[in-house]
């Protein structure tokens, strides 16, 4: 609820200045102008702080004492990368912002092409965000992933993003183009060495054609000391099904911002996720879903379990533009606070300019339901176990809606592990 105010340049901003100057001096490519523009855009705003409405609950400025040095090019051991675990996938490894062919799959997959890029994108959505601009000013590398029209890629495409080193920052720019009629499952992981302090800033631009079917799972399992900033901009064609899920477990501070725009009619988008937070973690999920055309459906369902002194932030804005009749948008945010020092800030917004729409949002915040707990205990289940069952059930409800069996299994296993609930009976 505040106007931006002019604030003095911080240490971090001064360091970023020097970093940009160094990069710009070396840039000879024809994207120098784009970098410069992005930098100017960032400079005009600075590192986001609480007086910027969209960042009100995540005061990045105060959490960035300094900007880490840009991470250098490295090739870690293959074992360092976790990704989707045991699943058989087509792997694309991005380390410190750069594509690493040695750690990536090299077999031919019909309909799929992967190429290394400079990381400079033509992103149109979300680019007025300061951290997205910063990404484009300093971007170290990236890939372009293309899926041909009508290609049904059976193998999950795994993007492993690894930040190697401590006190470093990495910037990657990725573009994903999915042709009309194509089908794909993408599993993207963000990770780094345990307990390393670093900042990863990823910008990804996704364009999906008509009649496509895309499932996208993001696993945010960065080091518990990391800062994670991800901007995802998504454009969807007509009659397409796009399902996205965020699993948020890592980072001291994370911010996932999704900018989604419906470009064609009859499309369905499901944005879901679970945040599992403890210690003094801070996790922010911010969505802008723009129903620019009629007859699209969006679902935004997020759940968070917050323990210790952790803090969950959810901001979601559903915009229904004039003329986007028959829009169906439903947003639901549910949070369990497990400790007296945990905190949730939720801002589920509707902005509606068309009358023939069905839009709703809801939010619940509270502790574990005492009646449920009593019912379980009355059946002989000890309290500690009953609590775990209820937390797991709370999260599973969101997970199961993702409808990709191998991902659901993976997510449930990760959730159990986080809960120390491996002993719980599974189905």
């Amino acid at each position: 609820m505040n106007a931006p105010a002019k604030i003095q340049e911080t240490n971090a901003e001064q360091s970023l200045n020097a970093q940009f100057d160094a990069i710009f001096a070396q840039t000879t490519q024809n994207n120098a102008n784009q970098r410069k523009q992005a930098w100017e855009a960032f400079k005009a705003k600075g590192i986001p702080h609480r007086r910027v409405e969209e960042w009100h609950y995540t005061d990045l400025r105060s959490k960035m004492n300094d900007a880490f040095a840009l991470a250098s090019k490295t090739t870690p051991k293959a074992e360092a990368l976790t990704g989707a675990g045991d699943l058989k996938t087509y792997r694309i490894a991005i380390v410190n912002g750069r594509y690493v062919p040695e750690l990536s799959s090299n077999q031919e997959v019909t309909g799929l092409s992967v190429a290394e890029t400079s990381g400079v994108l033509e992103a149109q959505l979300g680019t007025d965000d300061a951290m997205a601009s910063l990404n484009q000013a300093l971007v170290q590398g990236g890939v372009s992933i293309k899926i041909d029209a009508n290609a049904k890629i059976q193998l999950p495409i795994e993007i492993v993003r690894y930040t190697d080193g401590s006190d470093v920052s990495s910037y990657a720019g990725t573009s994903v183009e999915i042709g009309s009629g194509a089908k794909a499952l993408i599993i993207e992981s963000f990770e780094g060495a345990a307990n390393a302090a670093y900042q990863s800033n990823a910008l990804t631009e996704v364009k999906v054609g008509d009649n496509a079917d895309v499932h996208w799972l993001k696993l945010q399992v960065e080091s518990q000391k990391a800062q994670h900033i991800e901007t995802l901009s998504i454009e969807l064609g007509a009659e397409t099904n796009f399902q996205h899920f965020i699993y948020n477990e890592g980072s001291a501070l994370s911010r996932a911002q999704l900018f989604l725009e419906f470009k064609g009619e009859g499309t369905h988008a499901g944005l879901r996720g679970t945040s599992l937070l403890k210690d003094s973690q801070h996790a922010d999920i911010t969505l802008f879903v723009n129903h620019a055309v009629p007859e699209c459906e969006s679902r935004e369902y997020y759940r968070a379990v917050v323990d210790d002194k952790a803090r969950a932030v959810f901001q979601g804005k559903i915009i229904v533009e004039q003329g986007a009749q028959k829009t169906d948008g439903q947003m639901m945010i549910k949070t369990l606070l497990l400790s007296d020092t945990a905190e949730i800030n939720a801002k589920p917004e509707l902005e509606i300019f068309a009358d023939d729409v069905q839009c709703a949002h809801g939010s619940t915040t509270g502790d574990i339901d005492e009646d449920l707990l009593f019912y379980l205990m009355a059946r002989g289940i000890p309290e500690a176990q009953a609590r775990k069952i209820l937390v797991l059930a709370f999260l599973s409800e969101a997970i199961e809606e993702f409808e990709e069996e191998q991902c659901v299994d993976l997510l449930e296993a990760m959730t159990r592990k986080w809960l120390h609930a491996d002993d719980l009976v599974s189905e």
Partner: protein
Amino acid sequence: MAAVQETIDKVKAIDVDQYKYGFVTDIESELAPKGLSEEIVAYISAKKEEPEWMLNWRLEAYRRWKTMDEPTWARVEYPKIDFEDLHYYAAPKKREGLKSLDEVDPEILETYKKLGIPLSEQEILAGVAPEHRVAVDAVFDSVSVATTFKEELAKAGVIFCPISEAIREHPELVQKYLGSVVPVSDNFYATLNSAVFSDGSFVYIPPGVRCPMELSTYFRINEQNTGQFERTLIIADKGSYVSYLEGCTAPQRDENQLHAAVVELVALEDAQIKYSTVQNWYPGDSEGKGGIYNFVTKRGDCREKNSKISWTQVETGSAITWKYPSCILRGDNSQGEFYSIAISNGHQQIDSGTKMIHLGKNTASRIISKGISAGVSQNTYRGQVSAHRKASNARNFTQCDSLLIGDKCGAHTVPYIESKNSTAVFEHEATTSKISDDQMFYCQARGLNEEEAVALIVNGFVRDVIQQLPMEFAVEAQKLISISLEGSVG
């Protein structure tokens, strides 16, 4: 479908020009020179024969205000206000030392009569059963022109008078509570109000007293190029109860007029305040020309345990509404309520809602907001619910529904939900819809014509809130809703 479309067209065709209360009272006024300065602040204070502490309080506010910027976060757009081009004081010229109602300028009495607010006690007593009597404080531009039933209220120990009088007669109460809920530096408009407020009502209900009748203030802006800056302060002492009503209208004028009020409520232990507003300031014409800028700060403080503050508002007027009647739930077990109907038509812009700040244990709040947008208007609900660390077992339920009539208007919902206590349970629900063809068809199949059907459905949509209003107000509000939406309905 056709029937609904036709109704929508009809609603669109009707402009807000038919505002019923748009007449001007022709009366000689005493105006302060345009513009704002320490001299003007002193002029207002002198006009009110205020003690020095009050003047200093105003001057401090004025100095603060000079350093502040107009807020821009609300979803409303309007040309920049020239604060130097306003009269900050306007009063009907009158003879010295008026004592009785009979001496009020007949033009003003006539004005209130036309507005349906009789100011003569005999007149009220003639037609109304004692339990339905309402005491009225009538504020005309910058001054209170009449207060009814003062003596009878005084018997019960209730103080109900213009705030200017309270500053002179009850300085200890005013000094203790004024600015204690909305601090001088709270926000741009509240600070401006603190510097230049001219009149408004003051209410004090002593311990254990249930106010014997409804109290009401009727605000009327008449003069051109004036701002109205009223200030209301209501204190319900331990174990007391009061129900207070507020109504507002203004003449139809081409230029925009500023209304920046501050209302402060204080509820002590076991006390209860029910505050109802029907806001029907001139909304501007069908082209969006003219109308009142209604920038209001209303806040209640449930200062002690078991207290309760309930806000009910029906907002149909004003070109721009910027208003968030809020509750600070400080006392343990205290309760806050906010019931709102906000109707925007034509070019109106509304950004309104509430804040429920849970500080004490076992505090509960309830928010029911019904927004209806028509024409090319924009209607935003903005609300904050927060639980602080110590607010164990805080409860909030929020229901915010929007109804759109026509496809050129906007309905927006911006909730801020903040919880720092795991035992706090907050539930928030919001929906946006239009009048469905099925509903229309059902009503029509039962013999209602389309206008009756729309009226019925809209009245059903807002029913939860209407029920919260005192009887007389509920009837008026229902009428107003029909008129605001289309005039021919109902």
